[in-house]
């Protein structure tokens, strides 16, 4: 009973908060990028909720019980590729105001490459939504099936009574997934990325706190840390699994598939993650957010999702727990060691992991449909029109994802085909993205054929795994699934290099690529900041808290500061500045960017803003503002 109350309260809180913050979402920029105003800690914390996916608690606990602490490897190997994200890709995307990955490819190459990437990413994202929803169903089934109260809450019993369908549909799997999809769709429709970020912040805290607490409770349950540590076999205590065995989870496979190619695809090409970092108030905050995530939050998240498996290993070895399959270790251990009420939090944490990944995927797919299909097809409309379409499309994608659950559940071959497809899309896209930003001379034709040949080679390797064997580094497997991404990346890199050396088309050479490659990031920053080159070479400064006055008559434009404050910030008239409520803990919820107008001649501690800025920033009367150099 207590568990059910906790789950109900959790649902109410998340949906309530998600819908409430929807009032801060007034434009498409708010809907997709949260108005580009959030602080690094908010972006970082919400990222963790997204990174800990629907499968994480189940999958990593399974890895934990089977392979021990090497279950953390995938969460702690992102640093190698970090420079490319924080020093090249993020500033390029952010300063150029690029709204989607395909949009970058049109600006960098041409429309054909963009269209190709749209198709690849949409199949990937929508397929991934279906896969996630099915995973949600499977995860929730193991929680709900034996619990009559939770079955009632999720409405499983109602469906079972109304439609038996001859046992064709598994309501224990289907109904909780539908309920979670509808609730995610509901708050996403209300506030888009703003709702996603705020709810994911709460969900991130919850899943980290609960995951770590269950691990601590588990260690206490088995007799304290020394019993826990001495009870684990040596191989289970190591940070990495064996070099090339087991084939399904070898260290070399995790390194290439996850640490190198996976990191770039996840942080650079995953539209959902990209949108999260684009919602930061500045490139500086985006950089701080990702360092916060990779250096601090991911290691803790790795313990939170995999630690139960380590405890499970001791319990299984000592005979305190019997499990039919390692897949069920998370739920079984949680049920065994958690008191009533605490288990409710565990269920809520699993739901948090499920919802926070799902909402990001739906927002990402909706962003691509609106920015890459609707906008080019219906150009020049008011922003309100696109916002309306974005909200509608997010609901349609949610509904389509729900439709995919029974399809994937019934027809395993479709599920497998899509899983293969997602593995085939990313390596060529990773290579094309990296070569595009590294080399100015990389041509549209080169990008096009790299994508085609790279994907074709990967498809071929599914039917002829022997192709992957030369680079498998001793892994004994029939499918070489973990090394396939390295194979795809090598083939794609060879094709890209051939085109780079032998085929430089005139269109690409003559195209204005300012700001779109690593060579011209400063130019992009200058353009973004309003044209003052001075600000690029300065460190970001923030003003003291200043009182403000709203110019209701529109005698003034945008924002006016005194001369001395402008000097302190290192900005000039025409530069972009960031205006925020002085209360840091709001994380930028009440803030906006604006172009600086001529200095005013009033007191230094006074800011004058127009009514439009006042509304856009959701400012409250009688609070103080801080001004920051936007670069």
């Amino acid at each position: 009973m207590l568990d059910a109350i906790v789950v109900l309260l959790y649902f109410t809180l998340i949906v309530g908060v998600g819908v409430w913050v929807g009032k801060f979402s007034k434009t498409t920029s708010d809907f997709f990028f949260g108005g580009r105003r959030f602080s690094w800690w908010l972006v970082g914390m919400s990222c963790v909720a997204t990174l800990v996916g629907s499968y994480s608690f189940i999958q990593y606990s399974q890895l934990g019980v089977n392979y021990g602490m090497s279950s953390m490897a995938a969460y702690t190997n992102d640093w190698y590729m970090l420079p490319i994200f924080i020093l090249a890709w993020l500033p390029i995307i952010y300063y150029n105001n690029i709204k989607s990955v395909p949009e970058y490819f049109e600006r960098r190459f041409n429309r054909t490459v963009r269209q190709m990437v749209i198709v690849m990413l949409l199949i990937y994202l929508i397929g991934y939504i279906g896969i996630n929803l099915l995973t949600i169903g499977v995860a929730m089934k193991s929680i709900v099936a034996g619990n009559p109260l939770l079955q009632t809450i999720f409405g499983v019993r109602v469906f079972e009574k109304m439609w038996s369908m001859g046992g064709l549909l598994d309501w224990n799997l289907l109904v909780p997934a539908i309920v979670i999809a509808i609730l995610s769709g509901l708050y996403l429709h209300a506030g888009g990325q703003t709702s996603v970020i705020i709810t994911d912040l709460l969900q991130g805290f919850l899943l980290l706190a609960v995951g770590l607490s269950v691990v601590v409770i588990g260690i206490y349950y088995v007799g304290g840390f020394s019993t826990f540590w001495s009870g684990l076999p040596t191989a289970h205590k190591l940070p990495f699994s064996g070099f090339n065995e087991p084939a399904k989870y070898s260290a070399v496979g995790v390194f290439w598939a996850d640490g190198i190619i996976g990191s770039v695809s996840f942080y650079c090409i995953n539209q959902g993650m990209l949108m999260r970092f684009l919602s930061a108030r500045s490139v500086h905050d985006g950089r701080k957010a990702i360092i916060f995530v990779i250096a601090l939050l991911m290691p803790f998240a790795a313990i939170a999702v995999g630690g139960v498996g380590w405890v499970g290993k001791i319990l299984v070895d000592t005979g305190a727990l019997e499990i039919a399959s390692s897949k069920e270790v998370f739920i079984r251990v949680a049920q065994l060691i958690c008191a009533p009420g605490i288990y409710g939090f565990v269920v809520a944490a699993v739901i948090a992991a499920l919802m926070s990944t799902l909402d990001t995927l739906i927002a990402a797919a909706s962003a691509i449909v609106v920015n890459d299909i609707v906008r080019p097809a219906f150009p020049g409309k008011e922003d309100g029109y696109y916002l309306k379409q974005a909200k509608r499309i997010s609901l349609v994608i949610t509904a389509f994802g729900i439709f995919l659950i029974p399809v994937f559940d019934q027809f395993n071959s479709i599920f497998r085909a899509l899983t293969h497809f997602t593995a085939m899309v990313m390596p060529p896209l990773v290579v094309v993205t990296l070569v595009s930003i590294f080399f100015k001379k990389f041509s549209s034709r080169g990008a096009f054929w790299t994508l085609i040949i790279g994907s074709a080679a990967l498809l071929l390797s599914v039917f002829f795994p022997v192709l992957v064997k030369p680079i498998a580094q001793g892994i004994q497997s029939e499918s070489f699934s973990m090394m396939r991404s390295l194979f795809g990346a090598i083939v794609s890199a060879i094709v890209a290099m051939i085109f780079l050396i032998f085929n430089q088309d005139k269109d690409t050479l003559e195209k204005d690529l300012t700001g779109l490659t690593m060579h011209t990031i400063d130019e992009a920053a200058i353009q973004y900041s309003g044209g003052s080159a001075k600000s690029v070479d300065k460190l970001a400064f923030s003003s003291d808290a200043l009182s403000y006055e709203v110019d209701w008559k529109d005698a003034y434009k945008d924002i006016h500061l005194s001369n001395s404050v402008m000097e302190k910030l290192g900005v000039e008239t025409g530069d972009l500045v960031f205006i925020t409520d002085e209360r840091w803990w709001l994380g930028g919820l009440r803030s906006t960017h604006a172009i600086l107008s001529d200095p005013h001649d009033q007191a230094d501690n006074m800011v004058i803003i127009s009514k439009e800025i006042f509304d856009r920033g959701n400012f409250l009367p009688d609070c103080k503002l801080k001004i920051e150099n936007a670069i």
Partner: protein
Amino acid sequence: MDDRWFTFFYQYGIGSAIFCALMFLLLKTKAIKLKRTYDRRIFYLLIAGLVSFMFIHGTWSLIV
């Protein structure tokens, strides 16, 4: 060599080589300029982060 150390040196050998190649490209294309205080801080922070991960994983392997 013990499998655990082979794995460690393989990962950090190849991983660090990729990391250094990326840093070299970033410097060569002037995506970062070490004469700028802000860029210099990020540059050293990134190197410190890699060394920290290497140190933690190395110490961990050693203790076990």
